[in-house]
């Protein structure tokens, strides 16, 4: 289909695929769990797009098509691991336990963060491309110094793979043998720029040049993504150093709700990838091999529906923050200019409760 070195354990039709190095370790309940995650995150994503179209969000970055990449990677994390996302990793945030309404706070433009990154061991969204990969390596260097058996997972895309920070993070991770896994979702498009402009070789081929292994996995195959990421994290935890995982996938939707992909790519390409849908192939496997009943699928769909409705209610309830909060947490303690400006805002009567 794409690359003979692509790790795939489940075909687009939902058939098991044998691989010389990897096999799925998951039983029926676990696979059903991954299916549920993917259905829910797609439903949340669709609800979010609707909310943006209705003027309730400033922006949304859709995840459709990349559910397997994000859920497979997110579920491969151990509780004590730490993950550093960019801005599209809603599926990973879900796996880390971040409440959906917290994922949307940034897009509702009521905050620049949204959740407690230490509580969920999942850092806050990073919009400047690639910055977070260095944070991940630094955090991993801290894990090393603590002598802890933990790993760090960081996310970026084919577009960000051209950023200096990403390449510097490769150098650092290799030099210090840091316990970090670089997870690149190659969704083929950096807004309008095709991945062929970012790299003349498969992205995972870059890793050996930096001195660590690279693996390309079918990013639409949640079983393969889970196993490949899990093994890379395990290796990192026990001193095996970094791995680059390239999840080969596709962004079915727009880059963000501000984007119009019909201006730069053809429908036929999108149609090809819709036939490689990450959710349908797992559903086929579950029905055929694990004899999961239609009623179970219906229940999951209903659960996703309930979550979407709750999300809508939660988002609509998010009022305008009190302007005075802009002065909070800029500094750790007193700062004469900030304190003076805060007083000025209070005196002007601009401050007030949520509206």
């Amino acid at each position, binding site marked *: 289909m794409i690359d003979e070195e692509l790790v795939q354990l489940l075909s687009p039709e939902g058939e098991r695929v044998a691989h010389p190095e990897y096999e799925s370790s998951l039983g029926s309940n676990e696979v059903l769990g991954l299916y549920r995650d993917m259905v829910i995150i797609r439903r949340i994503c669709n609800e979010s797009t609707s909310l943006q179209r209705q003027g309730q969000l400033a922006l949304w970055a859709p995840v459709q098509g990349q559910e397997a990449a994000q859920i497979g990677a997110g579920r491969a994390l151990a509780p004590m691991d730490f993950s550093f996302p960019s801005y599209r990793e809603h599926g990973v945030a879900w796996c880390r336990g971040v409440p959906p309404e917290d994922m949307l706070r940034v897009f509702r433009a009521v905050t620049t963060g949204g959740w407690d990154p230490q509580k969920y061991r999942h850092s806050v969204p990073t919009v400047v491309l690639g910055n977070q990969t260095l944070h991940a390596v630094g955090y991993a260097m801290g894990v090393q110094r603590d002598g802890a058996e933990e790993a760090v997972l960081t996310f970026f895309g084919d577009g960000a793979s051209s950023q200096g920070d990403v390449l510097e993070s490769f150098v650092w991770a290799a030099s210090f043998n840091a316990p970090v896994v670089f997870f690149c979702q190659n969704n083929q498009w950096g807004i309008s720029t095709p991945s062929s402009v970012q790299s003349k070789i498969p992205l995972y081929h870059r890793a050996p040049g930096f001195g660590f292994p690279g693996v390309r996995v079918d990013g639409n195959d949640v079983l393969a993504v889970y196993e490949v990421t899990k093994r890379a994290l395990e290796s990192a935890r026990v001193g095996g150093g970094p791995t680059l995982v390239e999840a080969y996938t596709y962004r079915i939707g727009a880059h963000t709700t501000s984007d119009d992909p019909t201006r730069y790519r053809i429908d036929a390409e999108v149609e090809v990838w819709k036939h490689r849908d990450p959710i349908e192939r797992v559903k086929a496997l579950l029905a055929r091999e694990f004899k999961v009943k239609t009623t179970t699928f219906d229940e999951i769909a209903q659960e996703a529906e309930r979550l979407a409705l709750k999300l809508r209610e939660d988002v609509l309830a998010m009022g305008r923050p009190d302007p005075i909060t802009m002065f909070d947490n800029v*500094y750790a303690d007193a700062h004469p200019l900030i304190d003076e400006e805060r007083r000025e805002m209070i005196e002007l009567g601009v401050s007030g409760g949520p509206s």
Partner: protein
Amino acid sequence: MATTTMTMAKALNEGLRRAMEKNPKVLLMGEDIGRLGGVFRITDGLQKDFGEDRVIDAPLAESAIVGTAVGLAIRGYRTVCEIQFDGFVYPAFDQIVSQVAKLRKRSDGVYTMGLVIRLPFQGGIGAIEHHSESPEVYFAQTAGLRVVSCSTPNDAYWMIQQSIEHDDPVVFCEPKSRYWEKGEVDLDNPPQGLFDAVVRREGHDVTVLGYGSTVKTLLRAAQTAANEGVSLEVIDVRSVSPLDFETMARSVEKTGRFVAVQESPQTASIGSEIVAELTQRCFYSLRAPGVRVSGYSVPYPPSRIEDAYRPNVDRILDAVDRVMGFES
């Protein structure tokens, strides 16, 4: 009370050593800082004593030095990053401005960006291009950062420790031309708070203000002025962001005249900020408008002619004459 004489370079070295002894989470990271001890030898001997895990010889990439220090901060470490020269900080500018400065805010106060970015700055060492710049204004403009500069060995010893202990990220500007000048260091008692300006010489005619290597030039100017019968009060600004306007205003309300001196170009500079704020605060005490003496608005020149670029005693006294000439 233990007081000893040492160079600013040694005082920084001793301050870093003491911070590392006090807190095992303090790390140093930078280019050539381990085995070599840094190009200015500020970290001399520290890797030998604290090991390669705490004094980290970094690959040569400034964005990564700062970016990984961010990750280490999230993990609870306090990293002192050495940027080898002022003009090499720009590859790290994105990390400093977009991440270091904003992550406390973005995480609603969960992340503490306890890291220090050491920046040898200003000119006066006869260097080639990119080794003599004054980029402090870029960082002073950025909310979330604090920017300080030492001018004496005693301040160097204490301010580096105070910066490491502080929970906000600190851009620590070191006047490299003063690294080898000696001064008294009190090893027991810090002189004052990290963000306090200080009067270095009392006077009553004109307040002159500056920071880093400029402070010594101001003191020389004050000596020359005194010989000519003009009394200058010298203020070491010390903290570039936030600025300690209370101390400055107290002085200017007394003298009624002031000159702000800096090596950076004038446009949107620290001196401009000082003139604007002191004009507002001390308007009814002023006997002349505040005047700035700055580096010229050109790229830092080849060092054979840097003496004509950097504010010197003549240019400072010329500005003093101008504010004195406003007397009605």
